């Protein structure tokens, strides 16, 4: 047998083996109907009915469901018949229930819950809209909250090109996308290219309670918009890294009370974050802060652009690096809280009423323009 004929037969065998596998596409909504499709009518039925590792295509349409995913898979919204919005909504019959407790103790109503993944593997959510309109306005208790997408402890995966909207919890606890880890081993979760809007809590939040952190979140290229402080929304945070070690890059954040918050978590022992290339605007009032670095690690904020906010940088933790950022049209540029451990250099700070608030010493090494009072606020 000639060599080329061997190749030919091998190819035919490969085709025969792989053809049945390729033929099965899992679909929800009924827009794709041929022998090669396995159809489901609900997302909930699909996520338990497919083999682990499958991709489930979601037809454009409205899915009034509370979804729990417990195996690795990819959920993907598709375009059909000139529509592209596959939207998970609140069931108007009101069956949304608390379905998970966060590592920080909050009982949560999660619209799309990723939990207890078996076998271990990533859960990816792509091109889906999660709309919280009509969700639990359960009033102001600190013990409960509301999330559009929730990745519980021990889970991993990617959220890409998603829309999360209208997660209003009633007292600052409505979150768009919430990812967390409360146990080792370390998990990696990516939230990217998503549109997150109209929350009264964090747009995107990543939480870890270990030291060192067991969650590495990559939060990039998202557009987050929330009502701002002047509109009575002082607790909204655009992107919140709480006790985790990750990167927050190239996001566009407008509105909210704090644009990007890096905080130490429950025990306030951890961690460091890199916050770079983000653009933040329209964060007036109080707190009205673009970037707040209060986690006790050595965080870095660089190459961010900040416009029309009350305070550009809040350096409460005292050991952070703020460099090569540009801020304009602010009340205050940088608040040091009299901490001596921060490095603030190479920034361009323009058009501020005050430049440096409670700086422990004379701050040099930045380009300063159009600032009424460069340094203000005495330190002991």
């Amino acid at each position, binding site marked *: 047998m000639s060599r080329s004929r061997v190749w030919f037969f091998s190819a035919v065998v490969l085709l025969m083996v792989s053809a049945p596998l390729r033929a099965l596409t899992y679909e929800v909504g009924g827009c794709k109907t041929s022998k090669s499709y396995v159809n489901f009518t609900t997302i909930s039925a699909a996520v338990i009915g497919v083999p682990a590792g499958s991709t489930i295509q979601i037809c454009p349409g409205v899915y009034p469901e509370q979804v729990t995913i417990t195996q690795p898979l990819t959920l993907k*919204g598709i*375009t059909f018949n*000139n*529509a*592209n*919005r*596959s*939207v998970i909504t609140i069931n108007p019959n009101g069956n949304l229930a608390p379905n998970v407790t966060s590592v920080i103790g909050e009982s949560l109503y999660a619209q799309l819950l990723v939990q207890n993944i078996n076998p271990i593997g990533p859960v990816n959510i*792509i*091109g*889906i*809209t999660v709309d919280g309109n009509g969700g639990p306005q359960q009033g102001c208790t600190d013990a409960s909250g509301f999330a559009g997408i929730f990745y519980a402890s021990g889970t991993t995966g990617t959220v890409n*090109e*998603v*829309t999360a*909207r209208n997660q209003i919890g009633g007292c600052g606890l409505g979150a768009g996308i919430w990812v967390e880890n409360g146990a080792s081993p370390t998990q990696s979760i990516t939230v990217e*290219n*998503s*549109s997150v*809007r109209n929350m009264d809590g964090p747009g995107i939040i990543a939480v870890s309670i270990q030291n060192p952190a067991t969650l590495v979140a990559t939060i990039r*290229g998202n*557009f987050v*918009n929330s*009502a*701002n402080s*002047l*509109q009575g929304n002082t607790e909204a945070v655009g992107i919140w890294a709480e006790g985790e070690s990750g990167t927050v890059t190239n996001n*566009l954040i*407008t*509105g909210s009370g704090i644009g990007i918050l890096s905080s130490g978590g429950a025990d306030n022992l951890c961690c460091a974050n890199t916050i770079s290339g983000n*653009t933040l*605007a*329209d964060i007036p009032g109080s707190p009205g802060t673009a970037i707040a670095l209060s986690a006790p690690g050595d965080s870095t904020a660089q190459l961010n*652009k900040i*416009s*029309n906010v009350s305070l550009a940088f809040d350096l409460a933790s005292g050991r952070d690096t703020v460099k090569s950022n*540009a801020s*304009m*049209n602010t009340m205050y540029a940088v608040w040091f809280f009299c901490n001596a451990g921060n490095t603030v250099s190479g920034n*361009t700070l*323009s*058009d501020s009423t005050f*430049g440096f608030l409670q700086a422990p010493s004379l701050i040099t090494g930045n*380009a*300063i*323009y*159009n*600032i*009424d*009072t*460069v*340094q203000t606020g005495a330190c002991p």
Partner: protein
Amino acid sequence: MSRHLAWFFLAVAMLVVSAPLQAVTYEVGGCKTGASYVNFTTISAAVSGVPAGSTIQVCPGVYPEQVTISQPLTLKGITFNNSSRSVITINNPTGAPLAPNVTSIEAGPVYAQVLVQNVIPLGSVNIIGITVDGTGGGAGCPTLAGIFYASGTSGTVNEVAMRHQLTPGCFFASGNGIWAENGASLNQTITVENSSVHDFDSTGIQAISEQFPSTLTATIKGNFASNFVDVTVQHDRAQGIQNIGATSAIMDNFITSGSGNTPSTANLFGVISYPDANDDVGNVITASGNTVADLYGYAITSQQFGDTAKSNKLSNVYAGLVVFFAVVESNTVMNTSQGYVFNASNPQCASEGTISGNVVNDSSLAFFGLPLVQIQKNQVDSDDVVQMSPQCP
């Protein structure tokens, strides 16, 4: 005499000659004193009193003046005694009110707070680190401008702050930040960069030329425009950056109109490009790397075929990219009512230009008037309607 010694004497001679020139620094405001400073009490006195090409340092403080610059020079705000704000304000009500001081090639008489005009000898006028505050300048509904570069002028505006160019209560809002134009045949180059422009009700930054080909090349980059138009009744459009007939590169600007605007009208524009008054289509712009958000209106709009929009980020606006672009590539549009509208009305559905690699996410309506073959070169996610009816084939 050895060669070394000759060089030494030459160097000494140069030092002696140049020393007196180096010693003179021009200053306004009185924060710098001493034999090496020539002091002026007003910016107006300084800009006419220094030799052409000088740099004038402006001390922090308030300068209630209407300034006209008619020779090449650099005006530079400096830091002194814990302040770096040198602010030109309206001399009102104690002094003479703002007067019309220039006629625009496009818009009639303009009341300019800082006017650059009839610059002799020819050369650049640079304005750096100055604040121009228009508070009170809108009384009587003038066409108000913070900084105005008139025909035949050139230079750079860098790290400037423009604020409160507002005309409250006027039927047509007409408060403008930085205005550069050329109606003459000699080519001019003007750069506006790294500036903060906020609280205006007409145009933040604009470049205008009425020749074809354009005689104004404008570079508008790295500026932050915010909080524009907050008037209850808006009878005219307002925009962050406007180009009329000039050849402009509009890049890396950050434009938000503030989230306090009531969505009663979609009459706001982030970046807008028009042909000139003679409809000389072809003096095109490139808009790249801009971020436009929080604007109840149109993020980037072109009214002439041939413009380019690349790698812009647009969010929380009524509509993303609109009308006659030639090249629309790699833009990201999220959270819009109409993500991306291509309305080449004559003929509709024309497959002109390059429209590819754009990402449209979270729109009520993604595309309009665009052939399917072009739509397919882009990425759509979470959009209610991909193509508005009537759909193109």
